[in-house]
């Protein structure tokens, strides 16, 4: 981190920031303002700081983060839609001393993969599940997610999501907190530097718990989708602060009882 950079013979600058070594040099394909890039970066910062690049195996989902394995310079597997936690279970069961995480969006984890989500956590699989909740299907073009807000306009709820017609936003983190297999459940965000710092702490804690074989750690990240929400990045942050966090309040939902 403290390497000296020599731009020319006269000026000597100290390098104060570089991207994590565990990120590849591939440019992110994510839209400007999207939370995925920040979560990727923070996660790989944690990998660098804890020195776990050789021990970590990740599972990418189907959704916008389907190419997570292009960016995260750790061994990774690409799972079928919704099945990341089952794939992670398969990996962890045969390599119990490695660290395993899954990275999934709301459609993946909270709709098509609900059964896998609940049963993976109910077994207390000793993995980290990262859940990016941006309330929309980003990759397929902005359709309703199980976590879309009431009244939210999406390409499949063009008049706004109606609870009477399609149900209420599903609060997966609240649900799975009830399961004894869930060791640590927290809801974080990445919409300002303070939130990013808190997410990083949660990630570090989760890795430590996994090393101690404590059970499933589950981190929901309330995120934004400027393209899917049809907003500018700034507008999307405002929507997140004013609307998303109202439905999905940030903070720990389950902490270890020691």
């Amino acid at each position: 981190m403290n390497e000296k950079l020599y731009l020319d013979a006269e000026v000597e600058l100290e390098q104060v920031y570089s991207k994590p070594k565990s990120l590849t040099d591939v440019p992110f394909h994510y839209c400007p303002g999207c939370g995925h890039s920040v979560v990727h970066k923070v996660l790989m910062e944690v990998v660098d700081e804890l020195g776990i690049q050789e021990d970590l195996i990740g599972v990418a989902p189907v959704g916008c983060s389907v190419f997570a394995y292009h960016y995260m310079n750790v061994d990774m597997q690409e799972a079928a839609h919704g099945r990341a936690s089952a794939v992670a279970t398969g990996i962890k069961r045969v390599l119990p001393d490695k660290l395993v995480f899954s990275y999934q969006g709301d459609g993946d984890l909270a709709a098509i993969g609900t059964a896998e989500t609940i049963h993976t956590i109910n077994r207390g699989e000793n993995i980290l599940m990262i859940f990016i909740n941006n309330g929309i299907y980003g990759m397929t073009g902005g359709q309703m997610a199980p976590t879309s807000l009431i009244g939210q306009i999406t390409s499949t709820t063009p008049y706004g999501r109606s609870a009477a017609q399609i149900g209420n936003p599903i609060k997966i983190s609240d649900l799975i907190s009830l399961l004894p297999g869930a060791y640590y459940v927290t809801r974080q965000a990445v919409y300002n530097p303070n939130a990013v710092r808190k997410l990083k702490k949660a990630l570090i804690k989760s890795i430590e718990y996994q090393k101690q074989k404590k059970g499933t750690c589950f981190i929901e990240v309330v995120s934004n989708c400027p393209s899917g929400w049809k907003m500018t990045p700034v507008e999307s942050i405002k929507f997140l602060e004013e609307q998303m966090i109202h439905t999905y309040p940030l903070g720990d939902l389950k902490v270890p009882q020691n």
Partner: protein
Amino acid sequence: MEKEIKTEEARLMKGNEALAEAAIRADIDAYFGYPITPQSEVIEYLTREVPNRKDKKTVVLQAESEVASINMVYGAAGAGARVMTSSSSPGISLMQEGISYIAAAELPCLVVNVVRGGPGLGTIQPSQSDYFQATKGGGHGDYHLIVLAPASVQEMADFVFEAFRLAEKYRNPVMILSDGALGQMMEKVILPKDGSLSKTAKPWATTGKTKDRDHNIITSLFIQPEEMEKVNLHLQEKYKVIQSEVRYEEIQTEDAEILLVAFGLSARICQKTVDLAREKGIKVGLLRPITLYPFPYERLKELSNQVEFMLDVEMNAGQMVEDVRLSVEGKVPVHFIGRMGGMILSPEDVLNKIESIHESQNAVNA
């Protein structure tokens, strides 16, 4: 010496249990499955026996569904494990998406289908109605499994070893296509020798990125069509090589004038028909494909120069018969007899069919 005798000892076992015991002896690292009749003895046997084998570290996990099972298999196979699952027809249907991903990502594993009668929820009785699904891909996209069809409890055990040999050699999923009768019936079996199936290095597996290599990625996503086409061409090249693994058994084909073609349980029935027919002076032989993919097209083509007609016998509406007809390219008539929905033909049924075809041909000739 005493140990040697012990491993060679004959046991009386159910097909499903012999298969499960063979899996333990093949040193599987993991089994993921979900109960379904008529194959539940596989997971029952493994959950009962594995904890008693102190030398084994086999993971046995009852998943929440067949969908979860096959994706656990994907994860474990991608992490370099020797891994398998088993199910019966409706459960195998649920696994198709995962099997397609496994074939595309070129992961070695074993999927056992103890077939029951369908379609739909069907029946729990034996059937061969999943032939198309097993041999033509089953899920989406252009891919093939290697398919082994046992015809005895002995082969239920032996083919586990054979399946992993082939799966690991070609990085391809292998299916054992059995049926409810082979799974449930008890026969004498000499079990394969414990620990005799060696393991090879899998440098492509996601076991944690080491400093001396790039990160390993297990995926089936190739968004650029040029790249996806290359992946497909590579798979098709592999399937061409796999054709050399074709296996079949011939019974009294040397002088046969009529050829029965049948796999699995139907071949057991036809074996008796061959004897019955020969007692009556009718020269009948039997070709039993052991690998259903690759299929013995070439051998059947050769035999079409020798026989008057072929009779394909299956416990379905006529599935393999399409491959038999492809083999002979119209040179000889290929007839079919089958029963569906869990019903089984008798050797006499098959003999009667042979005689009626014979008579009608003679009538035409006269």
